[in-house]
């Protein structure tokens, strides 16, 4: 990573961000920050504005007002591609994997490496893809026996790891995940939590949305609670309780 932000330094700042869809004020004057090596959980009731917030950060939506700073510099992303080029990778709930392709092919989807066969014929460099898949997955402490198998053969947690692995390989400094554990069984949820721990240890910033307080308390450093588009509160995980968070979520 060419310019890894030192751990603890601000990576991403959101200041007074608002977003409305016509009359619907989905996000209202929201401020938050993510530091390098920090995991921030977004919590809140259905329709609180969590997805809207991460979509505004990742370039899917243009904010109605407010600003986003990446390593101290104001940025505006016209598309998710632009955000990705700057190191902000979003892992959607449906994972966006091509099920019929291998881990390596998924990591390199859209930016496949080529080599020259017989010195002239450009062909896909499958060896490089497999090698990258192996090292990347090992970096996530994730060991798959069959690197050439299509990812459809893998479990939900493994596929989550592939999606995360792709972001890691392409040097994402900030990973945004929308309910990464929602569709998984309990053992698989634990693996994903472990993966988030790994990302944190590598000095990346992580924002993840979850409805599961257990997960949040297992891995997050801080929690930002949204209520009807407004920031209802922000707590260090070490200084709060399930009860307090629930109160912030429902109000009152």
């Amino acid at each position, binding site marked *: *990573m*060419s310019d*890894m932000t030192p751990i603890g330094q601000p990576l991403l700042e959101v200041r007074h961000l608002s977003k409305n869809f016509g009359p619907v004020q989905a996000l209202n004057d929201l401020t938050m920050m993510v530091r390098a090596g920090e995991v921030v959980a977004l919590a809140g009731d259905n329709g609180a504005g969590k997805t809207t917030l991460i979509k505004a950060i990742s370039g899917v939506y243009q904010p109605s007002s407010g600003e986003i700073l990446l390593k101290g510099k104001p940025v505006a992303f016209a598309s*998710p*591609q632009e955000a*990705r080029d700057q190191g902000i990778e979003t892992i*959607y709930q*449906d*994972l*966006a*994997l*091509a*099920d*019929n*392709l*291998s881990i390596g*092919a998924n990591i390199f*989807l*859209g*930016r*496949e490496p*080529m080599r020259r*066969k017989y010195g002239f*014929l*450009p*062909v*896909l460099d499958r060896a490089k893809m497999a090698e*990258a898949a192996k*090292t*990347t*997955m*090992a*970096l*996530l*402490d*994730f*060991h*798959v*026996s*069959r690197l*050439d*198998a*299509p990812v*459809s*053969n893998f479990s939900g*947690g*493994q596929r989550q*790891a592939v999606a995360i692995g792709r972001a*890691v*390989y392409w*040097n994402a400094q900030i990973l945004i995940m929308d309910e990464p554990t929602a569709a998984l069984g309990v053992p698989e949820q*634990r*693996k994903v939590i*472990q*993966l988030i*721990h*790994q990302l944190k*240890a*590598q000095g990346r910033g992580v924002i993840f949305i979850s409805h599961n307080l257990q997960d949040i308390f297992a891995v997050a450093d801080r929690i930002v609670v949204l209520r009807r588009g407004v920031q209802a509160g922000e707590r260090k995980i070490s200084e709060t309780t399930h009860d307090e968070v629930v109160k912030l979520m429902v109000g009152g």
Partner: protein
Amino acid sequence: MTSPPIPHHAATGHVAPQADHADKARTLLQRIADLRAWLFLAFLILGFELWSRISFGGTFLFNPFNIQSIAVFAVAPLLLATGQTFVIISGGIDLSMGFIMGLAAVVAAHVINWATPGMGFGLAVLFGSVVAVLVAAIPGIVNGMLVALLKVPPFIGTLGMFGVARGVAFLLAGGTTVPVKNEVFSALGNGKIYGVPYIILVTAVFVLIMRYLLGQTKFGQHNYAIGANAQAARRAGINIKWHLLRLYILSGMCAGLAGVLYAARFSAGAAQAGEPLLLDSVAAVVIGGASLFGGSGTILGTVAGAFVIAVIQYGLVFINVAPFWQFISVGVVIIISVLIDQAQRRFSGGRQSE
């Protein structure tokens, strides 16, 4: 990869060992299913060989005339089917290929006739063939724009083009066949080198190129990805519209080449040249292991599929069975193929690419 190596935490993501066993069984099943077209082919050839020995006391397979006839028979459906393989893997279908082939055959015939006096035999053939393939790209462009830009479902868009290409081809042909007077062209269609017909050589080289394109290039890789999950492909930055446009141009040009070789073989262009071949081409792709849901299929599978159909059609004539049995046999093979595909889908969520 430039991130610093991080010491591993407690093991987290190991694939459970007991999963390995089921994994292997699944892989084996997948292999067998992927090879089903070759198995069909082997059974068919074995069957005809036995029949031939028992009732005629002669060989079926080891008769070079039979092999050559089957191969020549397979040329046009195979050319259509290679293009169709790409389209079906992308999750689409191209129903217009048969009449694009006819259109190209008629255009090749006209242009070669027109150019021969001025250019001489050889150059006229080259010129006419190139023009015919380029003309075949035009309906491909329209198909591509309908599917990629206007979001018309491929089945409907190419069905429309089926009608348009058909009408234009018949109009250009004046409602009849267009004979070609050019001996180089008929030599191309019927001549041999070391006993191998030119059209088989041209087809073999073309199939190899298509196999390379599907299996070894970004275009092929993106084609698989789009067929499996277009949303994922888009998020990965693949330009889907541009891909689909090129895809339908490619299938149009495959049909164009088939049309040129048809016209060479019969020294005539006919609008209906490809009419019965379109469904054969789809059948070859499906028998070859591709799924009509998109995302899977291979060129080699399609080659096997095309030969399964050709062997059935030729073999039944060879053993003097009423030709209508062809339809029944090919139909049965298609149904079995699709059943295998679905059974396999139930076992594993998806399939491997080439």
